[in-house]
Every structure is written in structure tokens, then in C-alpha cells.
């Protein structure tokens, strides 16, 4: 039974497409994480909860009778200010401190967000309907929900937009300069405080986009943020910081890996396989790093 995928090769096509579409969405969340990790050296545990909050913004619009797809524009705008406010309230106090402190602080933020969302939106699982229909390939044997295609498409657009923004705009360049060397950037007149706030805001905005997309493709619940944090963390670990093509590739790779693990090992090992991969990658990177150090000595 486990090897159904080899008996029915068409399933491979289905699994690959599912994996890639999902992976692109994860990559968008991971890119936000990589950005602020690179710039501010903060691992944001609340990343997934920002995503879910973004999803609830789209869901609220859906309840008000507006098509939830507009959430991909409204949600990031609101989330930018949420991120900015979070920076001013909490993150600016931990930004230069030990990594452990920032993990603790963002973990706290995650709990507060979960409870607030539970309080405001209730503990029920909710979905927003896009009514986008389904694309069928190969005589209905491979199906692609149009909402997932839409999600992947929007993710790619935002990612490209962001890359251009980072290259061309003044703030984008300031962000990159701060990422390379915060002290040098400061000396050369970059207002790093402002850069940090903007970076955190941009990250939150990306989470908002992803959340709006998740509201129409998957489900929303105040407590499902953590899996998104873990996945984006993994993608960033694999891809490294500040390397968008690598983030996109590793996102898709992770999506593919998950889907195939599901078919070959069974659904119960899906998440387990992801964590095994994480352990393997961490060990491998450490091994590689220690080799490099020897060489540099």
C-alpha cells in the first residue's frame, strides 16, 4: 500500500504539483523570516502567528461580503503597521541582545497573539471561500485547485516585487547595508532604528499576504501558527540568509519532500520526516562549517 505511488505514476505528478504549489507559499513566509533574521539577527517564533493574523484579516473581509482574495492587498497593509508597532513596543528592546532573549520575547509575542486571536475570533476553525474552482489535467486524474495556483502566483509576484524594491529603492539599499554591517551603515548615516522597524514591518506584511492566501487554500485556527514558523525556519536554515532564489528553491524542495514522504512513508510520518530532515541538515551544516574553520585557521 505504501508504494501506491510507484504503481500509479500519475500520483507522482499530483504529488509534485501539490508540493511545489505549497512550497512556494511557504517560501514567501520563509523569505520574510530570512530578511529580518539577516538584518536584525532575530529568530521570530511569532512568524506563524503573524501569518494566521493576516489570514483572519482576510477572513473578516470575507465575512463582511468582500472577496477574500482582496486580502492579499489589504492584509499586508494592516500587517505592516502591526509589525511596525511590535518593533516599537518589544523588538527594539531585544534587537542588540543575545539571540536567546529575542527567541524568548517573540515566543511571548506568539502566545499573546494566539490568545488575542482566540479572544477576538473564537476558537473555531474557519475557512474563507474563494469559489475559484479546479483545473483538471490528464483526464481528471490530476487536479489543481485554482486557489492554490492563485496563491503560488501571488507569492511569486510579491517575492519579485520585493527583490526589485530591495535593489532599487533607498530604503531597500539601507536595509541591505544594515544587514551587511549595521555599525558601518550607521556611521555612513543610515538610520538603523528606522531600518529595523521597516524590516519588521515588511516581514509582517509578507506574513499578511501568506495568511490571506492560507485563508482561501487551507484552514485558520488561532493555534496553528507554529507549524508555519517551524517550516519557514527550516527553509531558512537550508537556504541561508538573504538569498531569495535559494529560499524559493528550498521552499519548493521542502513541499516536495513532504508530499513524497506522505506517499512513501505514510501520512503519520509526514511531519516526522520534516523534522528528521531538519536534524540531518543541522548536523550536516555544522560538519561543513567545522571543516571550513579548519581550513581558515
Amino acid at each position, binding site marked *: 500500500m505504501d508504494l501506491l505511488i510507484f504503481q500509479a505514476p500519475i500520483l507522482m505528478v499530483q504529488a509534485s504539483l501539490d508540493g511545489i504549489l505549497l512550497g512556494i507559499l511557504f517560501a514567501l513566509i520563509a523569505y520574510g523570516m530570512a530578511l529580518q533574521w539577516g538584518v536584525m539577527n532575530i529568530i521570530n517564533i511569532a512568524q506563524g502567528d503573524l501569518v494566521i493574523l493576516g489570514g483572519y484579516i482576510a477572513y473578516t473581509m470575507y465575512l463582511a461580503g468582500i472577496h477574500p482574495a482582496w486580502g492579499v492587498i489589504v492584509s499586508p497593509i494592516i500587517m505592516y503597521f502591526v509589525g511596525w508597532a511590535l518593533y516599537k513596543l518589544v523588538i527594539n528592546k531585544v534587537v542588540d541582545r543575545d539571540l536567546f532573549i529575542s527567541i524568548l520575547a517573540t515566543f511571548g509575542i506568539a502566545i499573546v497573539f494566539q490568545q488575542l486571536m482566540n479572544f477576538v475570533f473564537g*476558537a*473555531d476553525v474557519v475557512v474563507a471561500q474563494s469559489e475559484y474552482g479546479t483545473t483538471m489535467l490528464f483526464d481528471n486524474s490530476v487536479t489543481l485547485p485554482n486557489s492554490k495556483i492563485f496563491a503560488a502566483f501571488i507569492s511569486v509576484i510579491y517575492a519579485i516585487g520585493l527583490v526589485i524594491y530591495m535593489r532599487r529603492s533607498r530604503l531597500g539599499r539601507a536595509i541591505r547595508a544594515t544587514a551587511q554591517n549595521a555599525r558601518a551603515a550607521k556611521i555612513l548615516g543610515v538610520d538603523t532604528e528606522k531600518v529595523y522597524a521597516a524590516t519588521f514591518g515588511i516581514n509582517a506584511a509578507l506574513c499578511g499576504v501568506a495568511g490571506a492566501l492560507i485563508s482561501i487554500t487551507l484552514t485558520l485556527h488561532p493555534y496553528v501558527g507554529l507549524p508555519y514558523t517551524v517550516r519557514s525556519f527550516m527553509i531558512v536554515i537550508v537556504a541561508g540568509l538573504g538569498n531569495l532564489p535559494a529560499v524559493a528553491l528550498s521552499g519548493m524542495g521542502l513541499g516536495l519532500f513532504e508530499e513524497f514522504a506522505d506517499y512513501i512513508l505514510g501520512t503519520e510520518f*509526514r511531519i516526522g520526516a520534516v523534522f528528521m530532515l531538519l536534524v540531518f541538515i543541522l548536523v550536516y551544516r555544522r560538519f561543513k562549517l567545522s571543516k571550513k574553520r579548519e581550513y581558515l585557521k
Partner: protein
Amino acid sequence: MNKLVKLFITSISAITLALVSYTSSFAKVDGEYIVLGSAISLTGKYSSNGVHTQNGYNMAVERINKMGGVEVQGKKYKFEIIYYDDESNPKRAAQLAERLIKQDGVHYMLGPYSSGLTKAIAPVTEKYKIPMVEANGASRSLFTKGYKYLFAVLSPANQYLEVAIDLAVEKNGGKPVRIAQAFEQDAFSQDVRLGILDAAKRTGSEIIIDDKLPKELNDMAATLAKVKATKPDVLVVSGHTKGALTAIRQISEMKVDVPMLAMTHCDAAKLSKQHGKNSEYALCASQWHKNLSYKDKFFGGGKKYDKDFKKEFGYAPPYQSAESSAALLVFKDAFERANSFDRDAVRDALKDTDMQTFYGNIKFGPGGQNVAKPMILFQVRCKGDNCENKVVAPTKWASDKFYHPIPKWSERS
């Protein structure tokens, strides 16, 4: 100075003593009140169902008190409940149960919401020999531990979907069927799975897909792709509200054609409202439905309960509320038969319960589970965009015919 200190100490001790005697007089029966205790999830991830449970309890307390209360040894008593919020956290629930029993002196408990929390509280009530009637813990493991003070008004989890398999076999002309199943990895869903395994064995049916879904489930596309490739006769999904919503979303998006789809938690997930026509023909297990013809003198029948509940709380009662109300009817009945407030006498009376409530017949098996009430199955049916749950099994209560097989997606408008 010394005198002053002495006076201070004496007065403090006097106040403490007064408080202590007050709390102990608050215990079990206080004047004309019988005090029950319950830890319940008012915040946290079970908060919506916790509130449904609490509303069910409150509704019954008010009704019983209004209609004369509980008569013990010729005197009328009223019910009162002390609630604490367990924050949907099993550890907290166990602590609060201790607190209810030791500090508040509660001698009779009502259950919390969910199997997990009931499992956390049951050892505590058992330790202090406190009878607990619970209405929201269905896990089979609660009834195999030999608990003597635990009584559940609801049917155990393994019975949830057994009927569905029997129904599938019946529709297949009595021949065995091929089953695909996906269950979340938690106590409740795994118990539902055991029930399916039993039913499959009994009917000689074959299980061709047996997936276990992760707790942070949000995507079951892989399982559904397998279902599409293997074409089973029945697809069974159980993963609380998240599982039900995810399944319907992805089944409709991936156009998975199965003749029969059986699930749990459809009503809690508000499936027919959230997914509308896409959820049509889904078969759902439920503990209760307002159309059942059970009756009692407090709430009348299911329809009247539904009406009164709506008037009181402004929404239609889910089965979680109905079963919670039934728990108090059971307590009242037991107190009156025991004709005493002695815990063991009440426990013995509970054990011999054999009654009908608007929620169903109640009679406890040796493990404390309700053995007198069958599970019911309803099917989501739509007229235009308006979807409703219609009872289709068992035949005795059915208001509508079971629609089988589910039409293919290509034939659905």
C-alpha cells in the same frame, strides 16, 4: 504593644476560622442548594465547545430549579454549580478538580469538555470518591480503567461511525466493502478508528487506506490523491472540526468521487454553513439531533429543547449542549432515588440509572459509559444554497432517506 499583637493574631485567626467554617458549610449541600463543581474550558482552544457545555448545564439547572428542584428526604433542594476556567489545559483541569473538592468541598462533579480533560480529571474524582457525571468525554479509554465514580451520558467514541460501515455494507447488497480512512492522531479519533476496525472485521470488509493525520493537520491532499487512485466504497475521516473542514475543502477542490463519505464533528464545524453545497451528502455521526422522539418532563422533546435553548442563548443547541443538560437530569434522578446526600449512596443510585431524557435513554454499563443510546447519522442535504442536516440512520429515527451513492462531481451542479 504586646497586647495589640495578641489582639491582631486572635482576630486574624478568628477571621480565618470563620472563613474555613464558611467554606466547609458551602460544601455539598448548602441550605437549600446542592452544590456541584465543574472545571470547564472558557478560554483556550476548547472555549467554544466549553461554552456550549456550560450553557447546557446552566439551562438544565435553571429548568430543574424552576420546576420544583430535587426532592431528598421530603425537602426540596436546588442545584448550584461552581465553575472554574481550566484554560483548555489538562494539568490546570486536574488542579481545579482538586481545588473544587478540597477547598470548596464539592462532593458531586460535572465533567469538563473533551476526552483529554475528562481523562485528566477522572483520576482525581476517583481518588476522593466523588461521583462525576460527564457529558463530553467519549474516549473509550475512559471506560476501560475500572473507574467506579465516572458516569458518561454519551455513547463512547468507538461507536461513532460503526453504523456507517454497516450502512455501507447494507447498500452494497450485504457484501463487504473497501474502506479508506484517515484519522487524526489523538485519543478520540483513534477510538473512532478502532470502532471502524471492529466493524470491518465483523463485516469482512477490507481497509485499503489507513492514514493517520498529524495534529497540526492542514493539508490532506496526499491522502485524497490516494483515495482517488484506489476508488474505495467508503471514505471515513475524523479529525475534529479542522479535519472535517479540511476534508470537505479538499475533496471538493480535488473532485474526489466516493460513493460514501462518513465523518465526525460536522455540526461543531458548522460544515453546512461554512462549505455550503460542497458539503452536501456528507454523512456525519452525532450524539443527538433535535428531531429524535425522546421525551422527558423537563424539556419536553428535542424540538422544544431546541426552541427554548435558542430563546435563551440565541443560537441552535449543538449536541454538546444537549448532552450537558442531560447530565443534570441524571444527577437529579440519582439524588431522588438515593434519597440521601451520601456520596456512595448517590454513586450506587447513578449506577442503577435507567431513564429516558429528551437527549436519549440513559443506562450505564460496567465501565460507566451509556449503553442505552445509539449514535445517529445525519446527512447534509441542500435545497438551493440552504443546507441542512437530516437524520438518516438508524431507521427508527430517520426523517429522510439516506442518499446513496453520492453523485459524481461532474454530475453535480
